Every structure is written in C-alpha cells, then in structure tokens.
C-alpha cells in the first residue's frame, strides 16, 4: 500500500516522463490539472514524507497518513504551484494529520476495555497526547531554544512566535537581513540536531 499511489490516479495511466515534461514546459504547466500536479508532487516527495511521518507515528499509521495527506491535497484546489511552497504545504498538512491522529489514538486505546464514562474522560483529558511528540522531546527543544546565544534566540522567537519577517527583525535589532537569516539558520541547526538525536 505504502509504495503505491492511491488507485485511479493519473500516475497509473501516464508515464512519469510525461508528467515531468508537463512540469518543465511552460504551456503544459498551466494546463496540468490539480490532480496531476498533486500526483506529481507525491511522486517526488512520498518517500521523504513517509520517513518524516514515521518519526511521529507508527510506521503502519504513517503509511495511512501519507494516503490521507494525498486525498487532503486533492481537495485543496487552490494550491499555489511553486515547489517550495507546495512542499511546505504538503508537510504541514501531514503534520496536522499526525497531530489529529495522536488525538484520536487516545480514544481508540481507551475504548478497548473501559466504560463509556471513562472514555469521555479520556477525550476531555487529552493532556500530552495532544502533542505531536513526547514531553521529554519538547522539553529538550525548549531547553535548546533557551540555551541559544541571545541574539540568535531573539531572531528565532520573533520569527517563529511573533511572525516577524527578516527585514522587520533586522530593523528591530539593528542587524542586516543577511545576518538575521544566518542567525535563523544557526537556531535551526541547533534545533535540528536535537530532533536528530531524540527522534
């Protein structure tokens, strides 16, 4: 299942070379249907997405979520067709689905052998299960942010949690936009290594 696209997608009918051709030739690109575009995107990023999701949920659930992400994107006809954006959207959608999945997991596990009352309590009292990953990992990421050099941390927090753009941050902190980007990369380096070490 996980190695196949969902049945009935154009992938089954059209050779990959034709899809890629449709992407690179200007005229064909505009004419490419939404379904074709999404399918092409999946052909390219499916393996990556599967790996990504496997770190958040069990492998068999990850395969299911990949499929669900695909259908979700099919419905989202207003996607802007630029690759960096499309990929970011793809992974964001999958991340949200993984979050929902973990939420549902609480209920599913509970209803195996508990009464309805307990089930309702389980639904209300979701606690850490609402989170994408365990408490320990979050605590480590939080600590890593706190431990960043002051300027790097400020750049990261302003961008991540206050939605400021690099030029805005540059102006506030009296830095060049380029060094804001560099500090952003530094922060991401630290956090990525925490993720790599713990997940």
């Amino acid at each position, binding site marked *: 299942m996980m190695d196949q696209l969902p049945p009935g997608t154009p992938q089954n009918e059209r050779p990959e070379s034709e899809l890629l051709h449709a992407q690179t030739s200007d005229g064909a*690109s*505009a004419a490419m249907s939404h379904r074709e575009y999404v399918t092409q995107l999946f052909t*390219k990023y499916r*393996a*990556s997405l599967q*790996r*990504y999701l496997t*770190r958040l949920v069990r492998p068999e659930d990850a395969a299911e979520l990949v499929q669900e992400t695909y259908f*979700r994107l099919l*419905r*989202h*006809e*207003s996607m*802007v*067709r*630029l*690759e*960096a*954006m499309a990929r*970011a959207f793809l*992974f*964001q959608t999958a*991340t949200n689905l993984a979050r929902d999945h973990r939420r549902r997991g609480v209920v599913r596990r509970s209803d195996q052998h508990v009464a309805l009352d307990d089930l309702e309590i389980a639904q209300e009292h979701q606690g850490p299960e609402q989170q*994408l*990953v365990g408490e320990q*990992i*979050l605590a480590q*990421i*939080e*600590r890593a*942010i*706190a431990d960043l050099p002051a300027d790097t*941390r400020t750049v*990261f*927090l302003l961008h*991540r*949690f*206050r*939605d*400021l*753009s*690099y*030029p*805005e*941050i540059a*102006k506030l902190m009296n830095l060049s*936009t380029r060094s*804001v*980007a*560099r500090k*952003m*990369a*530094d922060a*991401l*380096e630290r*956090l*990525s*290594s925490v*993720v*790599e070490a713990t997940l």
Partner: protein
Amino acid sequence: MKSFLRWRIREQGAWGWFARLRSGRVDERVDEAWSKWLAEDVAHARAYENTELAWELSAELKGRPKLEALLRDLEAQFPADTRRAAAQASPVRGPLAVFGQSWRLAGLAAVALLCVGVVTFFMLNRVSVTDYTTEIGEQRTITLPDNSQVLLNTATHVRVTYSRSLRRIDLLSGEALFQVQKDARRPFEVHALNGVTTAVGTEFDVQVNGASAAVSVLVGTVKVEGTAGDPKGQTAQVTLGQAVDYTAAGAVSAVRAADANRIRAWQAHRVVYTDVALAAALQDYNRYLRVPIVVGDPSLAARHVNGVFRIGDQTAFIHALEEGLHVKAVATGSEIVLQKP
C-alpha cells in the same frame, strides 16, 4: 577532514536553505536551485526533514511556561509599538512573501501608494500576493483587482492572494468586512485561524478574536468550514442576518443572529453599545486604543453601557462613561483606570 567538510556543507545546506526560503529574498530561480539541491542526495532530503520537524515541533511549545517567559522577556525588550512600526516599514512576511523580493521593482509604485504591501507576480500562474495592515485605531478600504472591496478595521493584517483561479484572503489578525463581486468560477475564500469562509457574491464580516473567529453575513450566503480542507470538518451555511463562531480547533457554533448594527457602525467609524456590560464594551472599544481603558473596581464590570460613540474620540467616550456610570477615569500612563468616585 575532507569528509567532515563535506558533511558540514551538506548539513548546513538544510538549515541554510530552510532559513533562506523564509527570508523574503527568493524567486523562481532560487526555488529551482533549492529543488535541485534537495533531489541531489537522500542525505539532503533527510537533513531537510530534520529541520522541518524541528520547525514544526517548536510550534508545539506555545503556552509552555519556559517559552512564555522567554517571549515575555522579548516583549519587554521590544514594546508593541516598535513591533508595529517595524511591521509597517516592511510588510512582506509569511510563506508566500518569500517569493516576493526579486519582483519588487514592479511593486515599488504600489508600496509608495499604499505605504504597505508588495505586489508579487508569478509569471507562470500570475499569482499576486499583497499584504495590507492597519494600525491601532486606523481603518482603511482596499479595492481588489476584481473590484471587490475589503474594509479593514483596527489593528488588522490581511494577505490577499489573487490568480486566475483563486481569490483568497488570509485574515491574520483583526477584523475585516468583505464586499464581494460575483464570479462563480472564482470563489472568494477568507481564511482565518484554521477555518475558511467561502462566498461567491456577498457581503460579510470576519473577526478574529484570540482563539476564535466570528463570521457575520450582511448580504447573500457564505459557507463556513471550521477546518480548511478537512472533508470531515464541521461546516455551516450562513445567510443574511446570521452569524457563526468557530474555534481554532475547528468547532463551528450553531447559527445565531448577526449583530449587523455593530458592523454597519464600525464601517461608519462608530461603535454601538445597547445594554452591553461595561467589561464587554471596554474589551471591544480597547481594540481601537493604544492605551486601554480598564475597570479598577470589579463591581463596575457588570454595569451596562448604552450609546453610539465615535471611534477615535476617546475623550468623549471616557467622558460619557464618567457621566453615565458615575465613575472617575484615572490615567496611569500605561492604562486608563475606571474607579468609583
């Protein structure tokens, strides 16, 4: 040593690329280079997944005490005014904005004209993305390419994305009133929090208030989906005179009566309060004020306020409260406190 360097460059690639794609200095050429880099080596893809995961997981920290403490330190360092001033000087931000800068020449005139907003054209799809903001207490009308109009209320930020097949507004904060031109082939979508309101030709108001959003319809009918793109998500049909609320989690309320008077009033720079509790009236009126009015004595909060007040005429409003409720307003510098005389 050589392999260490290689590793270094390769790894730095992921963080560097991720940071760069959010920088506001990316065009199609960079997009292509990034895509090529990503496909070059599975190690690139893996490193990029790590960075993406780190980015997503960091969002999960919202509300945790340690992070909130760091953010409070930040607020102390950069007061809200500084933040808004900076935001106006450089309006482009967010995921769409990253593709903007190299097309900026075309937008310069627009920037000068609007003070805010950079028009971005993607030749491929002719997608334009423009940001508009208002300051606290400010209101403004923007006319979209199809002649639909958006009236922005105080402290509001919208991002407008238009293409041949798409009319999309992201209401990132605040409140806006939409007068939509009919175009059956191009539904008009307003995204706020996680929900989306879809209209064809109509007039409606969307207000984001913390973790919930309210959609009120003045003309026509709209469809409200609590969770954008979720087939199982809750939806509601909302027609003229009606309103619904939805939460960030996607729960949509039952249809209720819209407060059309309130919306028509703000359109005319006025607020209308009919038997509204003082606390609620202040919460509403404070949206227009840099120095908020607060209740000093809890017993005052439940008193009722009636009247029509001009937005921007704070003095008259405070005076009316003093007269009508027999209270005294005392300015402390950071707020205006209503006390019993």
